[in-house]
């Protein structure tokens, strides 16, 4: 058995931690994350409140766990929507070629020209602050990324002899794209999805931080960060905890994606 790369293992561990906490929050959190207790505000870590309480006396651990769930859901939805549309466009561009391919890829280039996060902020600001709009905005910035990866990988597969054989058997380009191209470009798409998951988490946190994402009382790392900002000198730990969570999640998915790429693409390993 080949040894798995270190980044894959560390990434997988961090991702398991975040997803585990998010999944656990569905059935159990130490406290209800909305329970306020003004008298117990800014509580230090204790047996009942492991990481203490915030400015309204809410349990920090419970909030972080519920926010993890929120963050995962937004990122998952955004990557699924953006990934599906982008991959479909990439497959289409590759299958048809010619001016259609050029058109799709030039539009993708325009999409790339905008800084992704700023673009998401702009979209969320235009369509109004809500979690749905945040998901749509993050989905949107994912489309060109997946379109480009799918098209580049698909173009490689189109030159394979089994695709020629399928054409010789009279299959249409649509059927070939579905039956032969898509399964064979799954690996790079999954790698990209993992990396984009990290980007989506960061984008969700940024949007929520700016008040364009999750609305109160829905918990979010980004919003916890922005609320803690005004209390930086009073209770710096309230900013540090959600910050660490964001770092953990983003780093975890980023490393996992890199690790998966190393495993699935033997060329990259040899270069090291």
């Amino acid at each position, binding site marked *: 058995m080949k040894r798995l790369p270190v980044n894959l293992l560390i990434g997988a561990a961090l991702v398991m931690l975040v997803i585990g906490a998010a999944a656990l929050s569905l059935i159990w959190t130490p406290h209800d994350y909305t329970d306020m207790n003004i008298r117990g505000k800014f509580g230090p870590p204790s047996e009942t409140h492991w990481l203490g309480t915030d400015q309204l006396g809410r349990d920090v651990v419970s909030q972080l766990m519920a926010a993890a769930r929120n963050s995962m859901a937004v990122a998952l939805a955004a990557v699924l929507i953006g990934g599906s549309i982008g991959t479909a466009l990439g497959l289409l561009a590759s299958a048809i070629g010619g001016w259609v391919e050029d058109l799709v890829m030039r539009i993708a280039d325009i999409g790339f020209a905008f800084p992704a996060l700023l673009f998401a902020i702009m979209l969320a600001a235009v369509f109004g602050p809500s979690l749905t709009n945040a998901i749509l905005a993050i989905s949107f910035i994912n489309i060109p990324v997946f379109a480009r990866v799918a098209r580049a990988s698909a173009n490689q597969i189109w030159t394979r*002899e089994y695709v020629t*054989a399928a054409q*010789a*058997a*009279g299959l*249409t380009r649509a*059927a070939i794209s579905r039956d*032969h191209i898509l399964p*064979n470009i799954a690996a790079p798409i999954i790698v990209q999805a993992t990396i984009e998951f990290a980007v989506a988490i960061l984008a969700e946190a940024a949007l929520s931080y700016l008040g364009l994402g999750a609305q109160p009382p829905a918990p979010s790392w980004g919003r916890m960060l922005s609320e803690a900002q005004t209390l930086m000198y009073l209770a710096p730990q309230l900013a540090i905890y959600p910050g660490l969570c964001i770092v953990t999640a983003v780093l975890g998915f980023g490393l996992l994606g890199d690790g998966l790429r190393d495993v699935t693409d033997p060329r990259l390993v040899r270069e090291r």
Partner: protein
Amino acid sequence: MFDLTNLSVHFGPATALREASLTIRPGDRLGIVGESGSGKSMLALCLMGMAPEAATLSGTLTIDGRDMAEATERDWQALRARRVAMIFQEPMAALNPLSRVGDTVMDPLRLHLGLSKQAARARALDLFAEVGIPDPAARLRQFPHELSGGQRQRVLIALALACDPDLLIADEPTTALDANVALRITDLLVRLSAERNMALLFISHDLAAVARATSDIAVMYGGDIVERGPTRAVLDSPAHPYTRGLLGARPSATSLPRDANGKRARLPTIPGTVPGMAELPKGCRFAGRCPVELPHCASERPALTKPGPDRSAICHVLSQEVSA
């Protein structure tokens, strides 16, 4: 019936195929031999309507009397598998590694014949049995990497036969197989062609396989069909200098050539290499490598001569002999 008349394929200034004319009737078994780059695969792709987009075609191709010049990709898709099918050189590369071989064979059945999944599976089973795959029911569910080279080529033959084509093009079907398996695949193709009255276009540079598989042969060089005729006659008494060179370069297992001192002599070869498509001489393509070249060979195109019954060749030397 497939009819090519003066079919040429150009890539910009380069010529991949020059005025090729061929007629393929039901049950014909035609071999095409020639080196890499001689245009034999291009000829096959033209018959499938799969010439590269960058290529410009001229001349006519008719299938059952229908001129294919105006045929769209959709028209061709309807013809492929049903009228003309193809098998490829690399049986590993020609099967999708992520698809069960049964699904690959069922694809054209469901698409072209509109069979249900069950009917397509039953037909695929019959096909697997027909091409000599043992335990076909189990094989249907396997992936390409689980099969041997010979088995994979049989799967590809089953795929090509799926919709009962009139013409089967085999593009170097035995090149990637070891000799024993190659023989059996060759015999299988001959048997299938006879049983189904299906025309077989057998492309190869393996002269032994071509001799075994075909009744007629076309020798190609530099995009020209330089010699045509019954396989036996052409191989026994080659007329064109290129065919003679090709046959001379064939290693023999029984009589190793020896030089005057009894040492093992080098295998005779055709001097030089095939020039690039753009650098081919304007006249006879073989000029420059030909051992019996005449002064006007490189500049003037040789005319068709008839060195024997049912035979033809294009060569200035031959036309001189005929007129002399």
